[in-house]
């Protein structure tokens, strides 16, 4: 018993020492940014993303940093679990001294961290999640989003779909919020442009567990004129294989969300379907000076062509740099003020800005056709669709958000 008491007393006596651990060691000029993403759960998408932001951080620091300070990004794996993401966010902000957070890929983790940002009053730039809810129905003062949302990309495709003049459409989408949003947005936008359109069949396979043969047959049975696809990753490969075996795509245009992104298109190899209308990223085919410089640096550093995630990661850090420079400080209030209407004058994909009304960036996506060139899948006849054109007006968007 004595022993215990002595130990407790000893521990108590040591208490004041804890305050002496140099919390102020960041006296040398550096700005810590917290980053969270699903590195083990979805490495195919998050690895290129990580390479993208690492490149941007390296370039910025080589050029002297931001406001005279070096950028330091502390990056953590959320293991694909929203609760873990929250714990990490706590650690990054309360222990590591991160002045803001960015990252996340899965929509539910994006939403969880956004809600955390609101509660703990810290700026969060949602880099990759596509969910409309992040900026609209569940938007908040502290959360901004970079990547063109589900709604924007669906609207880009609806514009092209309307030109086809097909009447009977079937949809296939993974059965979760992203798939549901993507189908709802496409239906709404296409109906606006082509009021006589009919949706004759919907298939909702579980995400990453599609029973492709049965799904293809169910779509075929409805004899649609055209198909809108939202499946991606392994589901897309299965769907394409079963669909082409069973002649589902014969004489039937397919409009497909995200399928032009190298993350999804490259694995299809020589079996990639030709002539699908897709949103995506034509990578090294983009010949603007900004993009060529980015692609050259990326290839020099990583030895592979950039993917969609790379550009999202890279642009995230560009946006953060712009915000820090505009704010001139790392205080959350100053950063929030800077984010409102923040313009990023130059990026590999062209200029974009963050809308003050709904916190969505106007970064766009590339729309084109899938094609095979020398047996390799590519995007052909693409153009850059500026995100601003596919967003509701700022007044309308503000109404979609909850009152602060």
């Amino acid at each position, binding site marked *: *018993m004595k022993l*215990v008491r002595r130990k*407790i007393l000893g521990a108590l006596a040591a*208490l004041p020492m804890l305050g002496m651990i140099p919390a102020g060691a960041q006296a040398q000029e550096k700005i810590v940014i917290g980053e969270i993403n699903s590195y*083990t759960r979805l490495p*195919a998408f998050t*690895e290129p993303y990580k390479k993208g932001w690492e490149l941007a951080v390296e370039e910025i620091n080589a050029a002297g940093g931001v406001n005279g300070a070096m950028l330091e990004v502390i990056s*953590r*794996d959320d*293991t694909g*679990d*929203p*609760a873990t993401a*929250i*714990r990490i966010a706590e*650690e990054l902000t*309360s*222990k590591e001294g991160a002045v803001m957070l960015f990252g996340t890929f899965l*929509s*539910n983790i994006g*939403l*969880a961290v*956004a*809600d*955390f940002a*609101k*509660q703990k009053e810290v700026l969060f730039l949602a880099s990759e999640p596509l*969910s409309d*809810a992040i900026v609209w129905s*569940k938007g908040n003062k502290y959360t901004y989003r970079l990547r063109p949302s589900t709604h924007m990309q669906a609207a880009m495709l609806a514009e092209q779909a309307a030109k086809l003049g097909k009447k009977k459409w079937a949809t296939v989408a993974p*059965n*979760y*919020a992203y798939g549901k949003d993507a189908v709802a947005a496409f239906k709404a936008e296409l109906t606006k442009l082509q009021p006589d359109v009919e949706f004759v069949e*919907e*298939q*909702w*396979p*579980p995400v*990453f*567990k599609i*029973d*492709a*043969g*049965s*799904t293809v*047959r*169910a779509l075929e049975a409805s004899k649609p004129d055209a198909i809108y696809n939202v499946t991606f*990753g*392994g589901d897309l*490969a*299965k769907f394409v*294989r*079963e669909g082409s*075996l*069973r*002649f589902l795509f014969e004489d039937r245009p397919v409009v497909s969300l995200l399928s032009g992104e190298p993350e999804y298109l*490259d*694995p*299809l190899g020589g*079996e990639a379907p030709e002539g699908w209308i897709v949103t995506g990223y034509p990578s090294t085919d983009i010949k603007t000076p900004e993009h060529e410089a980015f692609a050259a640096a990326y290839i020099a550093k990583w030895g592979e062509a950039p993917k969609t995630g790379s550009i999202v990661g890279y642009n995230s850090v560009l946006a953060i740099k712009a915000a820090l420079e505009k704010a001139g400080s790392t205080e959350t209030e100053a950063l929030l003020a800077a984010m409102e209407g923040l313009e990023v004058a130059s990026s590999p994909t062209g200029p974009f800005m963050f809308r003050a009304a709904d916190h969505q960036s106007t970064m766009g996506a590339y729309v084109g056709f899938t094609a095979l060139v020398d047996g390799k899948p590519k995007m052909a006849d693409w153009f850059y669709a500026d995100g601003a054109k596919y967003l509701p007006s700022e007044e309308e968007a503000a109404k979609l958000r909850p009152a602060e």
Partner: protein
Amino acid sequence: MGFYVAQLLTGLANASSLFLIACGLSIIFGVTRIVNFAHGSFYMVGAYLAYTIVTTLDGGIFGFWFGVVVAAVIVGLLGLLVEVTILRRIYHAPELFQLVATFGVVLIIQDAALAIWGAEDLLGPRAPGLDRAVRIMGEPIPEYDLALILIGPLVLAGIWLVFHRTRWGVLVRAATQDREMVGALGVNQAWLFSAAFVLGAALAGLGGALQIPREAVSLQMDLSVIGDAFVVVVIGGMGSVAGAFVAAVLISVLNAFAILIFPQISIVLPFIVMAIVLIVRPYGLFGKEGSEHGAPSEPEQPLRLLSSRATIVVMALVFALAASPAVVSDFTTILLVDVMVATLFAVSLHFMMGLGGMVSFGHAAYFGVGAYAAAMAVKFAGLPMIPAMLIGPLGAAAAALFFGWFCVRLSGVYLAMLTLAAAQILWGVTFQWQDFTGGDDGILGVWPAKWASSDRVYFYIAFVLCVGGIWFLRRVAHSPFGYGLRGIRDSDVRAEAIGMDVKFHQWMGFALAGGFAGLAGVVFAFSKGSVFPDVLGIGQSVDGLIMVLLGGIHALAGPIFGAGVFVLIEDWVSRLDYWRFIFGAIILVVVLLAPDGVAGGVDRLLRAVGLRREERA
């Protein structure tokens, strides 16, 4: 008509794939009684190996089938490695403990596959000679589907022949029915177990290899099949290969037609079918009575009250925990809240499994119902935090009362699988019913009330609720009710003979465990500010299971050790690259060093250094 025939054929082709995965699992369970979580990993490795071999050889029809067979053989050898180096050493551990080891193997293989084959999905070649569709009644049917429809029954016939026409097969069947007797007759069990494990692993590898013409090989393959494979094995009856075949056909064909009418059903269909089958036939379609339990383990030592010295130590630790917010950083208090939540969750599961003898693979259901009930009370009814905290456990207990009524009618692995079905059905409803539960976008903004919003105040709320809950369950363990539960676990026949209402006792135990899991869920919801369907998911249930088993199922302190070790190690290693590999390796080391769990290991260590005296019986 042609359309329906074609849909049927599609279903049958899927059934063959599913059967190939499930039959190996069934054989392994039948003989060794190991619930093999790594089976999905063997399947994934088979697919990756086949991809590598087939694309490297590029040798037409012969090259393809050669690649498939070689991949299966290599996976069989991998199975041998796992069996000989790990599992063989822990066959005498408590029931189900081996699944912790296979969980470690899952983690290691995930990262190994990532390191070897990279993150990107790999789309293999189609099967040469079978790469087109033929028209049957006017409908296009892929030739490869027809090949699969043949391969499934061929493998079934092969297994049947081996089991009925070879001495080894007869021994395997005998071991499935009565291991002890087979051992007593002088059969070398170690050799029999290895062989069964190798065969099962090779079949999983074959199943994976045969998938490459149908789907891209990806790192998600392992976890995406394991749930369905278990369902098929259980519906068929554990250990029955023919049963697995019938179950695979049943599920696949049902799914092929169900998605024509109600496309959203796919996510829960297998679990609904399993729940119905288990309620009607408690041992699955072809399972035999007695197929539900592992080897009878040594009878457990009776529980003892803590000695006065131990009480002092425990009290000191509790006080140290209570005083910790004064010492540690804000983030550590948050981590400690996570540890306390996990501990209460694990203790409630241990109450069911360790004391009640009712293994649950779906305990997350009640954790999740608690979290959701509280979150919805805040969001929809606008209740303040404290009343919402009351509603959570009540809701969880109500759900446990409902599902428990069905579950306690079963036992062993079948009971465990019915709890899993209940959890998956709840998960499916939560996931799908967007208007009510928010779907996978979850419920946000469930933060503590203003007065409790500081990390420290919330720490004390969590402290009171979690430590209080753990203390209460411990009290119950030493109450007459707890003694009754343990009596039923050890011998339900004798318990019944002395006039105890066995089912009622178990039912109440189930509900109590569910209620406290719900309490853990409530504390969790307010600490994270949001709830998502993941809280009801298989991952959460498995985490709980691993904590209980890793900690040591035979000690009341087991789940406390298990949860603490699990959460803290995971938090630490997930900072590193390839952390799953490291985490898996740590689990294997713990498993090999302490086959009686961390609690057992600590106990032996204390005795070895003389800090704890041998107890006199």
